[in-house]
């Protein structure tokens, strides 16, 4: 216990130096955790994807539509339990800065396929019954202060014109990773209007969403679906929902790699700072370690003192950084609005923060500990403490 007391007192002996090092560690862990959360947010779509869902789109590109008639053929494939479909609508709410992902979907099958979008029974019924109805995620409804029954007008970009919807439900995510920033409305509403204004674009969908019974057969079913439309005018590309989402992430991979690199550079910088502090601390106390060695203390005791001191500094900084990540994330989310739909500090990030602080503490203590362990004990008799 006395040794533990000693290492804690040693850690704060040079108070200003220790406080500055802890502050640097706090900022580093805050930045690291924050950047990791940004990366996680990028992958939130991937994380939220289900292995029991496939996505079929036009083999040429996502912007090239597929005939809605494919639905019946896909439904007949063995292992397919449910087929839904939809279109990226790309409507703007009031101004372009209000980014809301909005989709025209076949509502009944879509909600069946995505049980993670939780609606009350009344809201679901109201939405399904109203062809002009729409549902929105909790976050987006909160941001724009929408209430059920409100009229929401989206300005079409891909499908020009003003599109008016009645908010029939506000869904909540079943899990923290569920995107609560989207808006869904009836595909039929879009399709019927298209039949009138752009008949050539009607009866076409952007994607099919397919529910399968056995995730182990995903690859096999995907191949079978694509083979159905081989050599047709609109060939398909079917993949798991996860692969589909990863395709989006891959488009911005360079940014992600940069963010990850920066987060690791931060750790290297903090390692250098803590190592420098520890080197100075130990150098100033070499004669004390020598005195302890003359008393009979050997390398395990000296190691406990040096590594313990280093760990006290890094873990104190890490815990402060981890705590501060929460308000920082909230400020960031408030500023970003719905741009990053899922921005949760995960348990994994916090564990990683802590492991890194331990690793930095140990690494920073290595050289000073070696120095302290190997200090000649004769030094104790000759040098002023």
């Amino acid at each position, binding site marked *: *216990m006395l*040794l533990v007391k000693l290492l804690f007192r040693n850690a704060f002996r040079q108070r200003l130096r220790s406080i500055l090092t802890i502050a640097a560690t706090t900022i580093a862990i805050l930045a690291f955790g924050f950047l990791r959360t940004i990366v996680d947010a990028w992958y939130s779509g991937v994380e939220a994807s289900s292995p029991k869902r496939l996505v079929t789109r036009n083999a040429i590109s996502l912007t090239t539509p597929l005939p809605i008639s494919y639905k019946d053929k896909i439904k007949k494939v063995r292992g397919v339990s449910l087929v839904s479909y939809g279109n990226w609508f790309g409507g703007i709410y009031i101004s372009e800065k209000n980014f809301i992902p909005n989709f025209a979907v076949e509502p009944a099958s879509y909600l069946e396929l995505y049980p993670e979008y939780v609606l009350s029974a009344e809201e679901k019924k109201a939405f399904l019954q109203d062809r002009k109805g729409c549902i929105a995620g909790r976050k987006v409804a909160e941001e724009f202060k929408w209430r059920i029954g409100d009229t929401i007008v989206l300005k079409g970009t891909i499908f020009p014109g003003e599109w008016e919807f009645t908010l029939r439900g506000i869904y909540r995510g079943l899990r923290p990773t569920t995107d609560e920033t989207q808006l869904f409305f009836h595909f039929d509403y879009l399709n019927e209007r298209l039949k009138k204004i752009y008949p050539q674009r009607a009866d076409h969908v952007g994607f099919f969403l397919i529910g399968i019974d056995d995730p182990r057969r995903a690859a096999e079913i995907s191949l079978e679906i694509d083979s159905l439309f081989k050599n047709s005018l609109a060939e398909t590309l079917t993949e798991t929902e996860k692969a589909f989402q990863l395709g989006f992430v891959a488009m911005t991979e360079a940014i992600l790699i940069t963010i990850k690199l920066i987060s690791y550079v931060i750790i290297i910088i903090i390692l250098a700072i803590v190592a420098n502090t520890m080197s100075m601390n130990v150098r100033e106390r070499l004669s004390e370690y020598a005195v302890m060695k003359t*008393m009979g203390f050997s390398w395990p005791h000296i190691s406990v003192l040096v590594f313990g001191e280093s760990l006290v500094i890094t873990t104190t900084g890490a815990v402060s950084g981890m705590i501060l990540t929460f308000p920082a994330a909230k400020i960031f989310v408030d500023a970003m609005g719905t741009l990053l739909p899922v921005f949760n500090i995960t348990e994994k990030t916090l564990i990683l923060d802590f492991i890194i602080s331990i690793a930095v503490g140990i690494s920073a203590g290595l050289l000073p500990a070696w120095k302290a362990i190997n200090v000649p004990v004769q030094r104790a008799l000759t040098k002023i403490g």
Partner: protein
Amino acid sequence: MNNIVELIEITKSYRRGSEIISVLRDINLSIPQGEFLAIMGPSGSGKSTLLNLIAGIDRPDSGRIIVSGIDITTLSEDELARWRAFHVGFIFQFYNLIPVLTAFENVELPLLLTGLSKGERREHAITALKIVGLEHRLNHYPSQLSGGEQQRVAIARAIVTDPSIIVADEPTGDLDKYSAEQVLDLLAGLNSQFNKTIIMVTHDPRAAAKAKTIRHLDKGILNATRETSF
């Protein structure tokens, strides 16, 4: 009389660049149990080296050092460290107390290696501090104590494990005359009342006069014994 320390044909040299400097040459020394020995000599005469060898914190080039019947030259570093914990009490010129520990904690520190319970450690540390007359300064940090008091804490730390020998390297070198006198009286008292074997290196003839025996070391050679009137 039983000898607690036996030095047999001890030789020690240091290398400075390409030059080899001989510090101790064929030293033979027997120190009986209960001795208070002062080793005097000019700077560079090898007296601190001799003290380090006896205390097991340095190793000779050749020869044997037997303390309490153990040939410490045959011990490994770890064995030597463990041996020091139980057999040697150190008193340094500059006290070398740990500044962030109180007087009590500084004295308790060597007891961590003894396997005593917390209560026993407390009892031993308080007894040691009582012996040096500092039982009222238990919770004072070194910076709150005078030089003489710090050295008395260092003496308490040296005796708390009840070691076979106490080695003191210029214990009064950093003290004023009054404090030096107090420290020397304390050492003399430990020797006379508790029969502690004390080996002290000093420049100061007044300090040496407190010892029972004085040996002079010059150019690595130990001169004849001279008994004091103490």
